[in-house]
């Protein structure tokens, strides 16, 4: 289930500056947003064979937005998480060239966290209409029934 952290570190040392650690989530690689796509490509073509991007999500950390890529190797049955963070309103570089499964989750994440999507073949909004606030930011409140009724 958990890949070898030392092997991951030695693999990534030749690709970009990244830190790998073992957390409650599993093995997590922290990378800068510019290096994330290169690291995903390196993990995919490595002997770990992380051939599938299982999930992609954003998290609002208050001062910045953290993007988590969740990769899986079916041959070894191991998972790895790559995390990078962006400023609010920053540019999310698309990973869809490496993993086609990033196509829709990236559109959703960019829309719901107010990010700009770059390098994506179809960077439109996915779920909500134009002008809708980025819903998943913590600064966007949920309105109460009374607030909705009173406009």
């Amino acid at each position, binding site marked *: *289930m958990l890949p070898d952290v030392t092997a991951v570190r030695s693999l990534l040392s030749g690709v970009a500056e990244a830190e790998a650690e073992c*957390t*409650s*989530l*599993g093995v997590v690689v922290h990378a800068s947003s510019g290096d994330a796509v290169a690291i995903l490509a390196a993990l995919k073509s490595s002997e770990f064979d992380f*051939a*599938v*991007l*299982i*999930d992609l*999500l954003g*998290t*609002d950390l208050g001062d910045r937005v953290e993007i*988590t890529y*969740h990769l899986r190797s*079916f041959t070894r*049955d191991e*998972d790895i998480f790559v995390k990078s963070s962006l400023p609010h309103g920053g540019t999310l570089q698309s990973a869809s060239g490496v*993993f*086609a*499964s990033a*196509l*829709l*989750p990236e559109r*959703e994440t960019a829309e*719901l966290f107010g990010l700009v999507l770059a390098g994506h073949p*179809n960077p439109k909004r*996915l*779920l*909500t*209409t134009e002008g809708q606030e980025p*819903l*998943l930011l*913590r600064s966007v409140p*949920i309105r109460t029934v009374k607030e909705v009724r009173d406009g």
Partner: protein
Amino acid sequence: MSPRAAEHVEHTATGRMVFDVGSQHPSTHGLLRLAIETDGEEIVSAEACLGFLHRGIEKLGEHRRYHQLPTLMDRGDYLSGIHGELASALAVERLRGIEVPPKAHWLRSLLGEINRIASHMAWYGTFGRDAGVTSHFFYSMRDREALLDILEAVTGQRMTFNYVRPGGVIADLTVVAESKIRRFLRTFDAHLDEHQTFLGGNELLQKRLRGVGVIDRDSAMSLGLTGANLRASGVPYDVRRDRPYAAYSELEFGIPIGTTGDAMDRYLVRIEEMRQAARIVRQCIEGLPEGAVMAKLPKALRPREGETYACVESPRGELGVHLVADGSETPRRFHYRAPSLFAIAALEQMLPGTLLADAALLVGSVDIVPGEVER
């Protein structure tokens, strides 16, 4: 060009046409609009236009206590509520370190498999409707109603159960419910053979399904497909076997795999999954241990700061919950990994090159639930 498209049509110079398929169609189990561009009878490009069922489940989850999360998950994939509830409960249990009583594990597997057959029955019925068959639908609803009746007898609800909670399940199996399950099992295998003869045994349907909507092994993996869609393409990955949860490590079941990844394989894999699910239900009923069904927990759960990912094998694939806790009563981030979202992307890749008449069939063959896609 697809080998099934009519020959010599490129000279008719009719021009391309863009139109909408949907947003209401029986095969979508909800609302899904496909903007399809066609050249004659052949689809050139397809784009899924989503947003009809976006309810902000992830945002709402950040404002709910931990044991309220299953209520929200029910409304995601409403055809298989137990699996959504289970994924969120597993994530909370993992973060908080909760020990679940053995009987609750077995009841989770039991209800999960009953729900799986009920969900596959809804798929089977609507899938045949997409292919132009009507009468089998009533046979599929006969079995689905029996299953929903069982689920109602155990949980009190037909679809949004709210049955699995962090720490266990809310109710034990009653004598009435158990006898209903036994009665269902007595006839189900024969009913499944009947279904298989009725729809899958029909030569016309087989001809329509073979070689259509092929997803090969590599593209299935790169598109992030899971569940029956992935297994039909020949990847033997099942969360129940590879990362056992609930009572699956103690249960015996087969995992059907396809070879070509076409619509026929996806059909056959799901039919066989129902047979295996009935096998698991039988084992659960026979081997159900005694004891409590819910662990003793405080009113408000406050997991330590941390992050976790828990996944289950829902009828549509790997349903995951990614939970970030900050030590308070509500999650910092609650993310729902929906298998149907990835199936929609696969659908967009699969449709170009096929005939327009097969579009509805292919939507049915990947078994999507828009409620889960948009959350």
